[in-house]
């Protein structure tokens, strides 16, 4: 069914299609419409779920955790300050291997206060043990939320998933979205069947304490699950394609990279703008491409290496800043390229913080600067660019 909805509504629709049991969430701009829409779906009877109206985000994720260990399929959504406020619980949920799915409507972090888009909020959570998928369109937001449950609940993965969509730019922007049929979704995503749940008949401790002898093994298991998730993410995307006729690239989504001299690495919505620019420059005969990282965790190091090995300059567009170093994606891409025989030069650009609009002209400027860049050197445009 062809619909015209925004990213938040697409997420809420996915929650309904996934037949989520329990939702616990706390409002925050620009995520609020997600939970409002879920509340409306429950009130109208379209969705049979419990919505726990928690008093904070830390509690939101704790309530999700509590419900999940009883075997529920759970969902939460947040943004920015809310994500930061549940930071302790993020580690706890991933360490507990509980398959929560969370939508993050990306927004910058205070201080200063902002309610507008950048990726700082979720990028700073890349070490929390969550799978992180960044989407480009409202359609992908919907599709990826559905895929996220398949990935998170996969017995070989059992790792929570964040689905990140740019605040406003996706969350509040309506566009054409194809809504999958419920029956098809039911085929794609069967009910959650956890192996270990809270039940008096088989008592377990959830979240044990572990001494120095045992603890590392749990962490190793977490890391291995992430490694397996690489493949699962790709497989699930393919399976989704077979049923729904759409795929989103698995871990990475290269665009005109094959023979590109300059490739721009992106996350999320800005990719669309970059595609426009790439097409335009290609018409001028300038060989540029765009590599969208759909997964930031697990980090697709192998795929990045493969996609970028042949080009001369890699530009990385970071909508975040790891203060005192550079954009986080830039660092990670560089790390992935070390060891290549003749690695491309990498130039980092920090742009679009706190809702700063990323225009076609900005992206064109990036490409043109890279064209001019010397071949060998690694540049760092470490500071945030302001206009």
């Amino acid at each position, binding site marked *: 069914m062809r619909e015209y909805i925004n990213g938040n509504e697409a997420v809420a629709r996915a929650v309904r299609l996934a037949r989520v049991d329990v939702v616990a969430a706390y*409002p925050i701009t620009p995520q609020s419409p997600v939970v409002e829409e879920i509340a409306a779906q429950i*009130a*109208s*009877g379209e969705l049979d779920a419990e919505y726990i109206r928690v008093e904070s985000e830390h509690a939101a994720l704790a309530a999700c955790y509590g419900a999940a260990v009883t075997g529920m399929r759970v969902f939460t959504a947040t943004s920015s*300050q809310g994500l930061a406020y549940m930071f302790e619980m993020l580690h706890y949920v991933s360490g507990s291997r509980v398959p929560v799915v969370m939508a993050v409507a990306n927004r910058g972090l205070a201080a200063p206060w902002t309610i507008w888009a950048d990726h700082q909020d979720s990028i700073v959570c890349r070490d929390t043990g969550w799978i992180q998928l960044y989407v480009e369109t409202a359609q992908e937001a919907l599709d990826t939320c559905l895929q996220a449950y398949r990935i998170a609940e996969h017995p070989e993965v059992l790792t929570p998933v964040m689905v990140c969509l740019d605040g406003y730019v996706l969350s509040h922007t309506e566009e054409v979205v194809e809504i999958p049929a419920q029956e098809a979704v039911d085929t794609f995503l069967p009910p959650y069947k956890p192996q270990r749940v809270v039940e008096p008949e088989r008592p377990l401790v959830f979240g044990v304490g572990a001494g120095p002898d045992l603890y590392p093994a749990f962490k190793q298991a977490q890391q291995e699950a992430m490694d397996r998730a690489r493949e699962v993410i790709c497989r699930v995307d393919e399976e989704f394609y077979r049923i729904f006729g759409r795929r989103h690239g698995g871990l990475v989504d290269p665009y005109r990279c094959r023979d590109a001299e300059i490739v721009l690495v992106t996350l999320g919505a800005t990719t669309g703008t970059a595609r426009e620019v790439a097409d335009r420059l290609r018409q001028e005969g300038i060989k540029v491409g765009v590599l969208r990282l759909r997964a930031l965790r697990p980090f697709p190091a192998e795929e990045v290496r493969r996609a970028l090995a042949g080009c001369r300059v890699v530009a990385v567009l970071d909508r975040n800043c790891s203060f005192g170093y550079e954009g986080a994606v830039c660092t990670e891409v560089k790390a992935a390229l070390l060891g290549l025989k003749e690695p491309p030069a990498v130039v980092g650009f920090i742009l679009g913080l706190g809702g700063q609009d990323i225009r076609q002209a900005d992206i064109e400027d990036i490409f043109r600067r890279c064209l001019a860049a010397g071949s060998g050197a690694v540049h760092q445009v470490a500071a945030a660019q302001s206009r």
Partner: protein
Amino acid sequence: MAVKIRELPEEELVYGSFACAGCGGILAVRLALKVLGPRTVVVTTPSCLLGVTTFYPQLAFKVPCVNVTFPSTAAAAGGVAVGLKRRGREDVHVLAVAGDGGTVDIGLQALSGAVERGHRFIFLCYDNEAYMNTGVQRSGSTPRGARTTTTPVGLRGRGEDRPKKDMMRIVAAHDIPYAATASIGYPQDYLRKIQKAAQTQGPAYLHVLAPCPPGWGYPGHLTVHLARLAVQTGQWPLAEYEKGRLTQKKIDNPRPVEEYWSIQARFTHLLS
């Protein structure tokens, strides 16, 4: 100890904000600052108040304002109070302001801790009975029955289904030196209570009803009217806690609550 209106200073200490026309919250803060005067530090937190007064380029306070994260308003206020004390600035009032969400939900713990520690500060909760800044979601202070965007009315939804958290009793249970509820519909009473709070040698708590036109669904000119009606219909008791005693102003012949409900979109479903 009545406050004389004529003696209140002319200077407006919050002016030019981006609040909606007819906002009860900004009125509550304006009146508080009228009594406390320019030697006041406002400590505030995400809420309509922060959104409409301290987003550059529109900064509407004439007193210093310390913004902090949503869960820790009172903790920051405590820090400010301790710091000012050490600097010998005990002539300065510390006025922490939060909406109901920032008070009864996500800010409760910090408030409880700060009150327990006995810092000298005033905590002002302007209660518009929902999360307004983010688009009218229910809070722990939303009254039973009210429609909000997270407690919609539908086949399986009848608006908020839990009673309003009784913050006044919760704070009183902390044996706070002074606490009171108030309504901007009864300014004399409210001003007097602010003054009492200002004179308290320790934490003081004020909880003031502050109607919100878009959030409650009524035209802005009725703000004060509704704040009065809430008291007259018994929906908003005027209470005071002092020297360990909680007293509540009796309402003789309360007006029917329907009168209050009928002019607010959030309650219309209760009337049919």
